[in-house]
């Protein structure tokens, strides 16, 4: 390990590596609870489908406020354009 070349001696390096090896080989605690792989597969599929739907829906969600704003602007323009005629009528 070329990055272990300063300050830590070779002896200390061996101690560290031994300590980390023991830590890595330690058994799983009793509290480790992993779901059944079939259950996880179903969950993963659902998440993937949901993510795909979200990607498809994203442009639609983005366009919704744009449509509302365009509608409001169009209504305003129409009102301004029609205002002289409306004033004549009323």
């Amino acid at each position: 390990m070329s990055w272990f070349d300063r300050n830590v001696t070779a002896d200390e390096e061996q101690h560290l590596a031994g300590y980390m090896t023991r830590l890595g080989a330690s058994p799983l605690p009793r509290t480790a609870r992993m779901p059944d792989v079939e259950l996880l597969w179903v969950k993963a599929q659902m998440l993937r489908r949901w993510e795909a739907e979200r990607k498809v829906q994203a442009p639609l969600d983005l366009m919704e406020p744009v449509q509302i704003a365009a509608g409001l602007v169009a209504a305003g323009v129409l009102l301004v354009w029609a205002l002289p005629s409306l004033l004549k009528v009323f």
Partner: protein
Amino acid sequence: MANWDERTFASFYERTWRAVWLYAYRVTGHASDADDIVQEAFCRIISAEIDASDEEGLRRYVFRIAGNLMADRWRRAAREGSWLERLRGAPEVHVDPEYDDSVSREFAALTPRERALLWLAYVEGDNHQEIADALGLRRGSIKVLLFRARAKLRDLLTARGVTARAQ
């Protein structure tokens, strides 16, 4: 999208989950967090743009997802913690009783990032580039960060009289 089927997924999961769980457990210090992180990492991997037949690439990728998920949790905890600390006056440290064993006590005294760096370097045997990818860090900074983490762990082990020879 990766070419997953249920059998490929089950096979990869059975071979890999223990390593990812231990990594998440040792870095977060909480079994319940490790459960959540592993589940989410494996759920996300099937949506990844990666070849499902590339075992080593998949393994690295799942560690990377786990690293990102842990980083998200630390950031969220730091945000929430800063408010809580202001209210309480002092931070509250929770240690999983099962985590606090004789082997891991010194390791638990490191910061989460130091734990992740050392775990990936020693237990997973990753090189600098792989560690950088897994933790979202620059490759150039890994050497310095690892050096500091190693020196800190060595000091902790020395201070508590724990050495590989002694045990």
